[in-house]
């Protein structure tokens, strides 16, 4: 077996163990910096490169060479072609080339009843044309646009998949499969009612919000299902609204359908990874109720407290504050990694990922230097 094949096998075993709740041989490490960062780090234009998928291969190759970790450092890259063909308002490119999700509203407050009665039909007929302006057209034009967009999406992501396989084979990386979904309340906020809209709805139309979350739950379960049952991978659920709600609102609107979502996905034999965005410290007891071996990547909070409360049951990750790479010295950056390793590795189920993704380079190049030092440390000192 080649060296890279042996490496790939070892790394796959790390994740097999981690996801099944066994303590792996060492702490698996993922790069906090994404392909967007790499594109800029190697001097390419982010906006242009995302249109030219084959151009990403040498970039990813160099990135894996220069910053070795266990997984493919692609991140949740959103390739722009199909968004543009659809006239997307929900995912838009910013002036620096980074694709992001602005505040949008696909459902009006007075439409809740229709939505609740048939959420899938309502999304297809009403929400999609609002959020994707090119679908707001005659059926023939709509069909053609959708066909073009899906062709572009399959071409781009298909090619990216091939790149990933080649790079993984070359560098001996592992890439757990991912299916993205959202907590029902977050889906209602992010794509249907907007942050502002849902924040008013919980006071003005509480019963409808509850009913709408229940109505979209089956869609969210379906979206989170891995394409290959039993494959090494997880449903990825980036959590959004809970930290911005009062506890009693969280209990009523957010938690019931979110918990059901995770339980249903786990019942299908999958792992679930949560990106625990913002500060969830007041909800730790709830998180503890989720099925065993849920991966929780934290953005903020007290790692000691989290290790004590959740470390026996769940797989912990996150916390490493990437802004320190821009503001700190190399020593401070490595010390921080060591501190987290000392707190979280003793749980036996720790995966090194950062609190946020690094998506852009800094003018002075400090991030790259510090990042290298931190990854070098974590890859070589991750004993449990």
């Amino acid at each position, binding site marked *: 077996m080649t060296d890279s094949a042996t490496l790939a096998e070892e790394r796959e075993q790390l994740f097999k163990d981690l996801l099944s709740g066994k303590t792996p041989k060492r702490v698996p490490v993922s790069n906090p910096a994404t392909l967007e960062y790499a594109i800029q780090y190697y001097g390419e234009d982010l906006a242009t490169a995302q249109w030219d998928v084959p151009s990403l291969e040498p970039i990813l190759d160099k990135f894996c060479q220069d910053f070795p970790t266990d997984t493919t450092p692609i991140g949740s890259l959103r390739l722009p072609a199909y968004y543009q063909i659809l006239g997307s308002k929900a995912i*838009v490119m*910013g*002036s*620096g080339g*980074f694709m*992001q*999700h*602005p*505040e949008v509203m696909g459902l009006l407050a007075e439409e809740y009843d229709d939505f609740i009665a048939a959420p899938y039909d309502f999304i297809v007929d009403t929400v999609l044309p609002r959020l994707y302006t090119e679908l707001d057209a005659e059926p023939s034009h709509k069909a053609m646009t959708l066909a073009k967009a899906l062709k572009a999406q399959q071409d781009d992501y298909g090619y990216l998949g091939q790149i990933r396989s080649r790079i993984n084979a070359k560098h001996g990386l592992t890439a757990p499969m991912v299916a993205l979904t959202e907590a029902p309340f977050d889906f209602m906020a992010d794509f249907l009612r907007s*942050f*502002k809209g*849902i*924040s*008013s709805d*919980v*006071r*003005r139309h509480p019963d409808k919000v509850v009913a709408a979350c229940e109505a979209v739950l089956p869609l969210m379960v379906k979206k989170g299902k891995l394409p290959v049952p039993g494959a090494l991978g997880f449903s990825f659920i980036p959590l959004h*609204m809970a*930290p*911005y*709600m*009062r506890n009693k*609102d969280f209990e009523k609107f957010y938690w019931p359908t979110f918990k059901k979502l995770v339980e249903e996905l786990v019942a299908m034999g999958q792992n679930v990874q949560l990106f625990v965005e*913002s500060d969830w410290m007041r909800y730790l007891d709830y998180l503890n109720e989720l099925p065993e071996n849920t991966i929780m990547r934290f953005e903020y909070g007290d790692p000691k407290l989290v290790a004590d409360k959740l470390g026996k049951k769940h797989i912990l990750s996150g916390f490493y*504050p*990437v*802004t*320190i790479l*821009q*503001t*700190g010295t190399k020593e401070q950056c490595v010390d921080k990694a060591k501190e987290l390793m000392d707190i979280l590795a003793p749980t036996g189920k720790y995966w090194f990922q950062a609190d*946020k*993704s*690094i*998506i*852009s380079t*800094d*003018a002075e190049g400090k991030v790259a230097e510090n990042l290298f030092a931190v990854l070098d440390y974590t890859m070589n000192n991750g004993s449990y």
Partner: protein
Amino acid sequence: MVDSQVLKQAVGDLDEEAVLKMLDEFIATNPNGEEANKVVNACQQGMAIVGDLYEEGEYFVGDLIFAGELLSTAIDKLKPVLGGDHTGNVAKIVLGTVEGDLHDIGKNIFGSMAEAAGFEVVDLGIDVPASAFVEKIKEVKPDIVGMSGVLTLALDAMKGTVDAIKTAGLRDDVKIIIGGNPVTEDACKQIGADAFTTNAAEAVKTCQGWVK
């Protein structure tokens, strides 16, 4: 006449139904501008209660957003009876989400709370290049510049914007506050801002401290 204390408390409680009912009854009495200003004032004091409850951990961001909605509905209702006789503004703030970033929720919360506290807010919107900040500062001569961002790339854009303000020779004319998910004390120092925050209510207090 409205009982200012009751109205203030209803705004603080975010009891929309009660607030709107009181305002409708008030408007039906055909009040003059001075009376209307007192009512606006009570609403603003109610927003201060909201800010305090937020800092105490009783309210969260979603409640602040709803408070902003409630206040703008209230002011819209009162506009016809307010006439031109509006309360004097404390000071001016030029506000925007920095270049490369499209997120505006935090910025909008801060903007509406600052307005409620009597600031005049000039909102440049999202993905605002440094040059647009500089132009607007020259034009409206604000006391304070507020920069917002959610993505980590915003830190670099904030630094670029402060540098551009310095280059334009305007840095000493304004106080600069940065806000949003990635800001920290160290980032604030590197960027060269005067204050940083992840808390809109606290930010309004900082701004009030500057223009006392």
